């Protein structure tokens, strides 16, 4: 009991020193609005969760893209599908500890069957899944798989040219 209390104290002090981004909790219309943005920005939208091992493995590559194209019209958005009750205990500390710089949002829509097809008809529901689009360039790509940095970067290079 005492030990866990001390641990909690240590943890909270640690996180106070890390400037963590705030993570908005959003509904599906957030994605719909994003998807319909009429501009020349290339959006890289990754569906992930802290419990998903392959998702966590590829997160650094999305962060790398975010950093590499910081001054260009490229935006990385990490849509977390973590359970809402784990927002405080799992998602927030995870994002803070890894100091994620790309925008993270939590999609609170537990009725998956109602919206998976609206993201993409070809999506079976497994994560990681990634949507990359640029509406001005009329480009849209959907992937239900893991990425390497090079693969991601190749797509972004093509869309930003």
């Amino acid at each position, binding site marked *: 009991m005492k030990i866990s209390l001390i641990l909690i104290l240590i943890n909270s002090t640690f996180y106070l020193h890390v400037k963590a981004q705030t993570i908005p909790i959003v509904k599906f219309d957030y994605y719909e609005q994003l998807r319909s943005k009429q501009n020349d920005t290339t959006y890289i939208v990754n*569906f992930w969760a802290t*419990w*998903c*091992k*392959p998702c966590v493995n590829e997160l650094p590559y999305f962060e790398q893209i975010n950093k590499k194209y910081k001054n260009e019209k490229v935006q990385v958005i990490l849509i977390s*599908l973590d*359970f*809402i*009750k784990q927002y405080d205990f799992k998602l927030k500390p995870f994002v803070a500890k890894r100091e994620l710089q790309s925008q993270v949002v939590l999609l609170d829509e*537990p*009725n*998956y*069957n*109602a919206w*998976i*097809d609206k993201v993409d008809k070809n*999506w*079976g*529901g*497994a*994560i*990681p899944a990634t949507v990359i689009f640029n509406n001005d360039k009329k480009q849209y790509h959907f992937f*239900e798989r893991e990425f390497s940095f090079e693969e991601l970067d190749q797509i972004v290079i093509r869309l930003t040219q």
Partner: protein
Amino acid sequence: MRTILLSVIIVFTAFSFTSITNESGYKVGDKAEDFKLKNIDGKMVSMADYKNAKGLIIIFTCNHCPFSVAYEDRIIDIHKRYADKGFPVIAINPNDAKVQPDDSFDKMKERAKKKKFPFAYLHDETQEIAKRFGATRTPHVYVVSKKETDFIVEYIGAIDDNANEPQNVKTKYLENALNELIEGKAVSQNFTKAIGCTIKWKKD
């Protein structure tokens, strides 16, 4: 010459069809081929072993995935209520233990013992059965009905519409499908999607 060309075309078409079926797996209405997989008690289990069943609830699931864990109690409950009505559960773990050590055969035994699984929990070690069905995530449900010696796929998808909060479930897709089958009706919503853990395929 023509015959050769024709056979080439036939062979090619046959090939492309096979690859399509392999990739996408079963659709509702398809005949499911029987399998023989090792249960946690060491015995081999096939669909044909369930002689008195009207059908089967085949669930690709595993130990580690939070969605599978979230559904464990509901799967146990569904088995308890539907086995007597002719639809027992067969759980199948398709994950590669090298990629996800928590899903090894020994860990399956542990988990089944701890949760007192009342149904068979089979190990799809070669992952061939998951591929044949077209399972992509855990949990991923396939209901088959028995027509003489054949098993026909009647429902593919999710258990219900809220993985994490059972108290907030509005539509019980799987139970609705089972009830309709028991009443001799066609399944009205025979395909649903859900977020799940990817099946941990073997690395080449």
